[in-house]
């Protein structure tokens, strides 16, 4: 089955993973800007990173027939330095015109600090001005509930933000209902230890439905599995779900959400 993984940090993966993705049926990925494992200390570092996301990775992905799209931001983990963060946000507009850039992401909160919120709000304002799609990172572990609620409040209060153009990623059992009830899209991330398993993701699909929901692997430089999405498809099959469920969350739904950007063109 052809599928889309809408959240993968390929900059931290070897080219072997592109081959594995292609063999598994992945035909498109989207890669949010994220924390690279260390705190960058200059806007130039982010400029070069944005070049990598918009130039190098699309070419690397194309070697295996995979379409690569990107999101841009300064991630919440590096948002405590307001001066640097504002300088990085100032770089984003020139990259928004690149053919593979879908919007602003992955913005959000990390440890739920006031500076993180300041930078989140600045990103939201930029997205509102340029009518970009938004991809949101919700905090890890004990911070997830509190951070998710703050994020939803900020987005919900902005008069120009349409929840239907915002994907709240890394939802778990205690946040998914609130995200969906408020009209946002919800992403379930199949990432060991700190996020969700394929089994729990399928549980949540059974309990909350498959509307406005997608699944992703968020494979990055930590212990993670770029093939987590097809493994979730296997879990659906083990439980006797029709193949339409896997197609819905890994093809139809990503195309619906991402297709709101005129740049996203993935065909059957």
């Amino acid at each position, binding site marked *: 089955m052809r599928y889309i993984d809408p959240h993968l940090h390929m900059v931290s993966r070897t080219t072997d993973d592109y081959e594995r993705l292609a063999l598994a049926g992945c035909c498109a990925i989207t890669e949010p800007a994220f924390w690279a494992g260390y705190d960058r200390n200059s806007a130039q570092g982010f400029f070069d990173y944005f070049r990598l996301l918009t130039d190098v990775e699309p070419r690397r992905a194309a070697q295996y027939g995979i379409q690569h799209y990107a999101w841009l931001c300064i991630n919440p983990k590096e948002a405590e330095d307001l001066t640097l963060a504002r300088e990085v946000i100032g770089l984003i507009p020139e990259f928004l015109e690149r053919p593979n850039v879908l919007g602003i992401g992955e913005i959000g909160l990390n440890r739920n600090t006031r500076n993180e919120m300041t930078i989140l709000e600045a990103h939201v304002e930029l997205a509102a001005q340029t009518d970009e799609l938004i991809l949101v990172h919700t905090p890890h572990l004990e911070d*997830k509930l509190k951070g998710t609620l703050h994020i939803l409040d900020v987005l919900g209060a902005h008069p120009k933000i349409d929840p239907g153009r915002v994907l709240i990623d890394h939802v778990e059992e205690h946040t998914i209902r609130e995200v969906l009830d408020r009209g946002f899209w919800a992403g379930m991330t199949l990432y060991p230890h700190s996020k969700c398993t394929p089994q729990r993701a399928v549980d949540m699909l059974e309990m909350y439905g498959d509307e406005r929901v997608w699944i992703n692997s968020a494979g990055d430089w930590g212990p993670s599995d770029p093939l987590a999405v097809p493994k979730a498809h296997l879990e659906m099959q083990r439980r006797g779900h029709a193949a339409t469920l896997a197609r819905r969350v890994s093809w139809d739904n990503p195309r619906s959400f991402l297709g709101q950007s005129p740049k996203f063109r993935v065909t059957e």
Partner: protein
Amino acid sequence: MSDDARSCPLTVKQALDLYFIEHRAKLLDVAALLDRLGRAQDSRGVQDSCEVDDASLRHADARLAALHQALRVLGDGQGDYARRLQMSFSDLTTDLYPPGTRGPAVGTYVGA
């Protein structure tokens, strides 16, 4: 799909056929961890909590308490276990924190 009371398409037997062995192993991992904590150099027995000022030991207490609270949730027969477990580990305060005051997440709320 709706009405989560019967939203799993499997029977109880089918679900156990698929998942029992795997989760038996996960439960043994938890049991072994509790034993390991009891054999730790500074253990006073897994039920004790120390009155300490050191932040790292305060963390250790909070995580130990979180483990035991998690086991109580799992054993209380009230259902909705995954969500309630997530809530038991969560920071339920509402105010944002001052900048630069927080280290990495540890997996359970340990206080400001």
